[in-house]
């Protein structure tokens, strides 16, 4: 359980892990040298496929398979790295950008080489000025050192990398909205199909990958896909960054091998709940994931498939822990308010529905709830995500609307009595 793939360098050299000198001194860019020197692009792609690496952005789609969706004959192709990390509780990409940007740059170069991409983009969240600065410096250094630009390391491979700063929209983390934003349009998700792999940026074949996914590529190329696949359980192999926050003694980013139980993660890795309070619930994979509760899920394994079977997801790896003092209605209200604020406004159910749910929750929270509001809340949620099942059905283009439903179904499933008490007893806040 001590395997470190992504964070070893930053842990060993906290002062200068982001510099080119330190990166090179700790084995950086050897994978790129190896790939450009001895491997064909297909070899690199084959290693990634063999690694069984699954995307770290949230959906967990196998990266190698995704890469295989690019049409053979269409050029140019683009690689877009999604660094628009803005879900509440998620801060894993931030340390990768801030503390080990060269790892990402090398990953971009490797992925671009594998995919025959000559222009890659990194879409960085607008509220990440420092990570963006660090990454830009790393890219500049890489250009200077010949790891980017024309004829990289004498191999004849050319690659441009452009860093683009978003303007503060969570929705631009959705890959097609990100592409629209990158093109200078309104950040609104596109209708799929066509998928970005077929018609993405500027209607050209485009691969959109998460920062963590791409940052893993140098290790895979250096050590081989099989070595990566051998770490951890078969279908959730490799290490993964978790952002632990909320009521835990030691919040922060942790790189762990998947396969431990939630009990291990919260109580061992996170150090348990402060002041010896009881655990009430936790969000296993970002604000859009349905919640877990100790009675049912403490011994569920932290793998993509186990969590999906239990009705939630690992998502973006943001684990928010709530202790017994948490007002679940307030927590749900805060999350729904976030989604209502971040809705792009394109689809009717999401634009109107998220705001409506937020207002109902506000009413309940402030003692103005009515008995009929519980059914109303669930029915409005049902009109955004029919059937209220997991994985969610949608009446919308993208999953943002259904994401706002998750906290509501969670509190209504596990804490309905608390919500009802708010309605009968009146306000507890405000």
């Amino acid at each position, binding site marked *: 359980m001590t395997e470190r793939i992504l964070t070893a360098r930053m842990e060993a050299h906290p002062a200068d892990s982001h510099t080119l000198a330190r990166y090179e001194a700790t084995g950086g860019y050897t994978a790129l040298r190896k790939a450009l020197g001895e491997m064909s692009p297909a070899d690199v792609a084959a290693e990634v496929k063999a690694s069984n690496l699954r995307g770290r952005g949230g959906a967990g789609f196998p990266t190698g398979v995704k890469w295989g969706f690019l049409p053979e004959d269409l050029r140019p192709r683009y690689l877009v790295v999604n660094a628009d990390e803005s879900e509440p509780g998620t801060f894993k990409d931030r340390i990768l950008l801030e503390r080990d940007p060269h790892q990402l740059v090398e990953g971009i170069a490797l992925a671009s080489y594998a995919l025959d991409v000559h222009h890659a983009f990194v879409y960085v969240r607008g509220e990440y000025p420092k990570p963006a600065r660090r990454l830009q410096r790393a890219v500049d250094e890489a250009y200077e050192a010949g790891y980017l630009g024309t004829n990289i390391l004498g191999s004849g491979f050319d690659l441009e990398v452009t860093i683009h700063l978003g303007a503060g929209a969570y929705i631009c983390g959705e890959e097609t909205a990100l592409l629209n934003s990158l093109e200078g349009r309104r950040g609104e998700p596109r*209708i799929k199909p066509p998928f970005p792999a077929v018609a993405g940026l500027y209607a050209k074949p485009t691969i959109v990958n998460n920062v963590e996914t791409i940052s893993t590529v140098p290790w895979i190329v250096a050590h081989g896909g099989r070595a990566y696949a051998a770490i951890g359980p078969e279908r959730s192999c490799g290490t993964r960054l978790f952002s632990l926050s909320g009521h835990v003694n030691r919040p922060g980013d942790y790189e762990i091998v998947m396969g431990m139980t939630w009990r291990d993660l919260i109580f061992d890795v996170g150090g348990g709940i402060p002041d010896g309070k009881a655990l009430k619930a936790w969000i296993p994979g970002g604000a859009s994931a349905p919640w877990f509760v100790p009675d049912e899920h403490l011994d569920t394994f932290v793998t993509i498939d186990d969590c999906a079977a239990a009705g939630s997801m690992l998502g973006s790896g943001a684990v928010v822990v709530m202790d017994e003092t948490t007002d679940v209605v307030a927590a749900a209200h805060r999350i729904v308010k976030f989604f209502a604020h971040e809705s792009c*406004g394109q*689809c009717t159910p999401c634009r109107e529905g998220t705001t409506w749910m937020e207002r109902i929750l506000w009413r309940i929270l402030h003692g103005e709830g009515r008995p009929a509001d519980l059914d109303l809340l669930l029915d409005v949620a*049902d*009109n955004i995500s*029919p059937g209220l099942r997991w994985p969610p059905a949608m009446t919308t283009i993208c999953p943002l609307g259904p994401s706002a439903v998750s906290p509501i179904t969670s509190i209504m499933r596990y804490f309905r009595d608390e919500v009802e008490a708010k309605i009968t007893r009146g306000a507890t806040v405000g």
Partner: protein
Amino acid sequence: MADAPDQVSITLDGRVVEVPRGALLIAAAIEAGTYIPHFCWHPRMKPVGMCRMCLVEIDTPRGKMLTTSCTTPVADGMVVETSSPVVKKAQEGVIEFLLINHPLDCPVCDKGGECPLQDQTLAYGPGDGRFVEEKRHYPKPIPISDLVALDRERCILCARCTRFSEEISGDPLIEFVDRGNHVEVNTFPNHPFTSYFSGNTVQICPVGALTARPYRFRARPWDLEAVEAVSTVDSVHSKVSLEASMNEIVRISGVDCDPTNQGWLSDKDRFVYEHLLADDRVVVPLIANGDGFREASWGEAVGLAASRLADLGGAVAGLGGARSTNEDAYVFSRFLRGVVGTPHLDAQLDDGLAPEFAAAVEPRALIDDLDDADAILLWGPDLKEELPVLYLRVRKAATAGAKLVVVHPRRTGLDDVAAHTIRYRPGEGPALLRRLAAGEGDLAEARDALGAGKVVALVGRPGLAEPAELAEAVAAFALTLDDARILPLVRRGNVFGALDMGLAPTLLPGRVSVDDAERRRALAARWGSLPDGVGMGATDILEAAASGRIGALVLLGVDPVRDHPRPDLARRALERAFVVALDLFVTDSTRHADVVLPVAGLGEIQGTVTNLEGRVQKLNRVVPPPGQARPAWSILDDLAAALGSELEADAVEKIFEELATLAPAYEGLTWDRFDWAEGRDGVVVPLEGVTPPLRHVPSDPGLAVVSERPALHLARVLYDDGVLVRHCPSLASLAPEAAAHLHPRDASVLAVREGDRVRLEGVGVVELPVVLDPTLAEGTVYVPFNLAETAALGAVPSVRIDVVREAGS
């Protein structure tokens, strides 16, 4: 599984139907008789799947899935549920969501009664709302242009308007602002929604968020009486519905007619009805009296006109008919030739093309040919200004991939979508054409684009100062290409119909040459007599009238003082001759008339009209003419009777029957055919009879007009100071500022800056402010035609420019 290769079979609510392959599910289902409610989807625009109203359940390998039918193409074997409980729940949910922020001020909303949101709420809504919070509020309607008001509270954010202006009309002046629950439609700061097509957004708005300011609160949908007609503002003849309340036309809406306008209209088409209600419309016969007119009875006015015409024998000429119906034009033609006995008649004012060329150039393109053309050559007027609905069709074809080559002295509305834009100085057209035909130098690529596949050549006069023969030369070049068709561009309402009815010195009704002995015999037999010889055209007629050789002019809806390239000549002619004018208004021309007879206008008469591709369509009547105004054919019948002849023109159906027997191209058409089935989209009459004289080949040196002085580009704008626009209060104010447009380099040679005044000397002298226009060909001055300040200039190849220096500067 479907048998036909272009069909697939789908199961729609348990019913197996054959639908066209590749069609969108929503369109296929509606076509097959299953209505799917929708707001954002519009059959003429790309789907966006935003409103989520058209959700249906489709069977997939992973079970039934809710999907928007507007973004899903049909596939063979697809199983679709459009009214399952899940779908119904989703529809009710969407309606409820849409209504939570909708003000429900239906009683004061212009859309109330014909509102898709109302209708679909009734049909698919939950019947009750559960939203108890305060709705979203915005200031009530804000004017976003002179024609359109926006009420953001009512908006359901379907993006139809924003997509129309970006996708269809190409002037994206209206967009979404903000996000989430705060999204609103708005214009950009300090940029009003000044599109020539803004009215279409009002029509396609599924709620009352966008309303037309001229129509605002004028009527409710249930008290509108509507008939189909076509817009006779220009020669495209967009299909419209004329909607009247209390015997006044209060609204014109576009009707989707596949071969012509496809539902769209220009704002001029849409709001031109206002002229019918103008206070100064002529509604009783007028007889000149000193400087003005006095009202007279029909008997007195017609008697006076007839006695003077009879006195003059054959020294009479007729002008006009290009704004009238085919029946009016035919009767005018018969009246002049058969009753008055003059061969001098012209529907155009030497501002168009040669009559034989315009009426019968072959092979003639249909507007629909644009859709599958590989290349389009546009060498003619700026379509956006002169034939705006045709502009939309060309734009659609060009965005769909046709290579568009635009040749014009300055930037045109289509330059954005053109593959090649070529500028030239007016007068140097023939030389340019020679170089284009040879593919010389920088024109090689444009020549190559025209070299392959189906080509549609849109040819007309780029400006009035250029000769009409240039268009024929361009057509002659186009005909050297493999597969080219010609669409001649002349703007005025029913000019093609008027030419077809023989309102040209060289043509007889039915696109027949005036020399055709056989047709002459047939006509003479019916008309009694037919004058010999080829008569004079408009300019010659005006010169003859000015010099006294023609003693009387009969004007039918024509304004030579404003529309003829030589306004001074027109004025002298009208001052000297005895003038009988049939018109809606006392215009700059009819002011000089001795007798003005009030005619009925659009929506007040029935008749047929012929558009630029030769499509005959019918105008219906929805209101009575005001006062004593009458159809022109009926007035001409009275005049003929007073002259002792019988035209037998006592019903418009009868006139049509007569012209359909005597005009070869119109043979076999019946009056009723336009009312039913495909006939509602009109009938394209075949080209017969006249072999168009392509008189000029590109190398003809006679065409070259090269002058040291600045060449004049005198071209029309959509909103000018013409009679109709001037009498439409909503449109008159939209006319652009009169100005002399100069290329910045020419301006610097003259040492003038933007806003300085210059004096231009053409036929007359005008003084105008300078506007710098870097898109203009160098050595050229562009002046908008027919604005009040530019009317005197006249169309001359080149002008003299003097800078007006302020005293003391």
